């Protein structure tokens, strides 16, 4: 693949494995084994079977007719919101739990922001009967209480991250610290295309099922597997990478990644990483991150907990830098309005993360014949409180 990772774990200038020596054996074990394991026939068979019978794949590609009319193009929704546990996160969790089993690991740790990845991880641990510890920022635990209960009901231990800003980046730090202290028996299921190599590549491969299915489905719908536009929201960037994956090498497909501008890119309350960030190192990879001139990580802001992350995956940083994908941002207000519009035009209440991608449609100029695929990464049940507060239903 033209835009894939090289042998050192880099995408152009980005990637690598910036980890302390204490993590080296864990990460090296993964690096040496992940491709052999996940390319094995027996692994693929079990992975695909679970995606089909347990997750409910393939997820539909839905031709959104009222959206198509409104925006003057053929708009298709890739329905990751219909997956078991309500988002694309489960694709990666299934892949990694099967990998962890083959590595002989007895214990799983994970970080979570909004709780979607935590719930997906707790789910697959229950499925496999493996101990599960999820780190979650103390502040996020309060804002996403229903997901905390879900994880507990699924048998996971939820540990509050009380360091730093007590949100997703600190939950990630705590998970890394746990892994340092438990180098032999524990696998860390990172939830996005971030972290030290091989995580960005491994997670992208597990999520690539999204674009793999899309191509076939688009062919059925339109007679052509190649769309003009592919769009997705980006926090760390796992649904976007899964949505882009099989279109990356096809240069005629325009890729649009939508970041969270929060209260506005220049408001001081934003998570628009490519606009506000600079190159640096975060959570084990060289990427673009929001930081001070002194190299301290800046706490981002977005109404969507899933996009509230100060960095982006290294492959996104690369696609941004070389202009293979277009990175744009929309505000809290624009996203919430788009969430309402999608609910009332298509009968689908999207996650607020997803609503960011939908909001970008307002700013696009399409030709009538354009086929546009947009990833509906998650459902909005978890966000009802936020929607209700905002619209005053």
């Amino acid at each position, binding site marked *: 693949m033209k835009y894939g990772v090289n042998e050192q774990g880099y995408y152009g200038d980005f990637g690598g494995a*910036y980890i302390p020596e204490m993590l080296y054996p864990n990460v090296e074990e993964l690096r040496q084994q992940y491709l052999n394991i996940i390319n094995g026939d027996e692994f693929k068979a079990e992975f695909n079977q679970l995606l089909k019978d347990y997750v409910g794949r393939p997820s539909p590609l839905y031709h959104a007719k009222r959206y198509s009319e409104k925006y003057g193009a053929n708009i298709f929704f890739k329905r990751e919101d219909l997956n078991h546990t309500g988002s694309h996160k489960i694709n990666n969790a299934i892949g990694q739990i099967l990998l962890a089993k083959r590595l002989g690991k007895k214990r799983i740790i994970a970080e979570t922001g909004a709780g979607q990845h935590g719930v997906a991880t707790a789910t697959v641990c229950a499925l496999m009967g493996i101990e599960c510890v999820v780190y979650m920022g103390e502040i996020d635990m309060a804002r996403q209480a229903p997901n905390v209960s879900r994880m507990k009901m699924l048998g996971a231990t939820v540990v509050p991250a009380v360091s730093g800003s007590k949100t997703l980046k600190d939950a990630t730090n705590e998970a890394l610290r746990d892994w340092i202290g438990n*180098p032999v028996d524990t696998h860390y299921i990172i939830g996005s295309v971030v972290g030290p190599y091989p995580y960005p590549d491994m997670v992208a491969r597990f999520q690539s099922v999204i674009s793999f299915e899309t191509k076939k489905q688009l062919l059925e719908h339109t007679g052509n597997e190649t769309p003009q536009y592919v769009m997705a929201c980006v926090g760390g960037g796992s649904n976007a990478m899964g949505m882009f994956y099989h279109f990356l090498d096809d240069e005629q497909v325009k890729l649009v990644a939508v970041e969270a501008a929060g209260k506005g890119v220049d408001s001081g309350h934003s998570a628009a990483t490519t606009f506000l960030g600079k190159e640096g190192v975060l959570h084990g990879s060289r990427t673009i991150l929001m930081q001070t001139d002194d190299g301290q990580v800046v706490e981002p802001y977005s109404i969507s907990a899933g996009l509230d992350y100060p960095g982006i995956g290294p492959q996104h940083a690369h696609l941004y830098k070389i202009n293979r994908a277009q990175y744009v941002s929309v505000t809290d207000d624009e996203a919430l309005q788009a969430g309402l519009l999608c609910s009332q035009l298509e009968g689908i209440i999207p996650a607020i993360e997803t609503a960011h991608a939908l909001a970008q449609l307002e700013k696009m100029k399409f030709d009538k014949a354009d086929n546009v695929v947009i990833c509906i990464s998650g459902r909005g049940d978890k966000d009802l409180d936020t929607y209700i507060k905002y619209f005053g239903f």
Partner: protein
Amino acid sequence: MNRLNKLFSTKKDNLLSIYYTAGYPELNTTLDIAEALEKAGVDFLEVGFPYSDPVADGPTIQHSSEKALENGMTLNLLFEQLADLRKRVTIPILLMGYANPMIQYGVERFCKKAAEVGVDGVIVPDLPMYEYETLYAGYFKTYGLSNIFLVTPQTSEDRIRKIDELSNSFIYLLSSSSITGGNLQLSVNIEDYYKRIKAMQLTNPAIIGFGISDNKSFSKACEYAAGAIVGSAFVKLLGTEGYLEKIEGFVKGIRP
């Protein structure tokens, strides 16, 4: 040959190093603490430059980093404070911190500035060997700085040999695979690990760190290595009233 190399060529055992975070508990006592540590007989110092996301550190050093940043510590300010370093302190000094602040400062500029103020070496736990070798080793060499690598009980023999090759002062031996601030575990496995390292007869001396907090753990470490580093236990002392006056007693308590 920098001060570190000189130290290791003349003194082979019982070396004591102390780590502390610059800017903690007060912004402007970096050199006062260094001076007091030299007076108390410490052989070399590790001055931490704080980072917002210190993944290799336990609660004590996390807290000191957070406080130091709140106090206004930056790399710029630290280098300003260190301008008078060599008027007040003669023992070797290492800077210790994470890769991102150093990369933002500019690694070449960082090395140049460090050498200018009289720093002898750098410890950056999350700067991997590959990136060091391919991107930055040239700057370290140009400015005569030692780069210190960490070794854990899980590090393979091949990798330790490679680290020994890339090192030119000492190797930082972790007492266990853990974050900072734990307790030194004197299990059979750990003794085997120290013995294994000793038997490898590396070119560079080893200094043991992480979990060294008192005379007992210091003495034990010195049985297997050229010396040991105390971090979290000292940072805890800095969090108490009248810390400058307590430094001598603390050091004597570790190494009478």
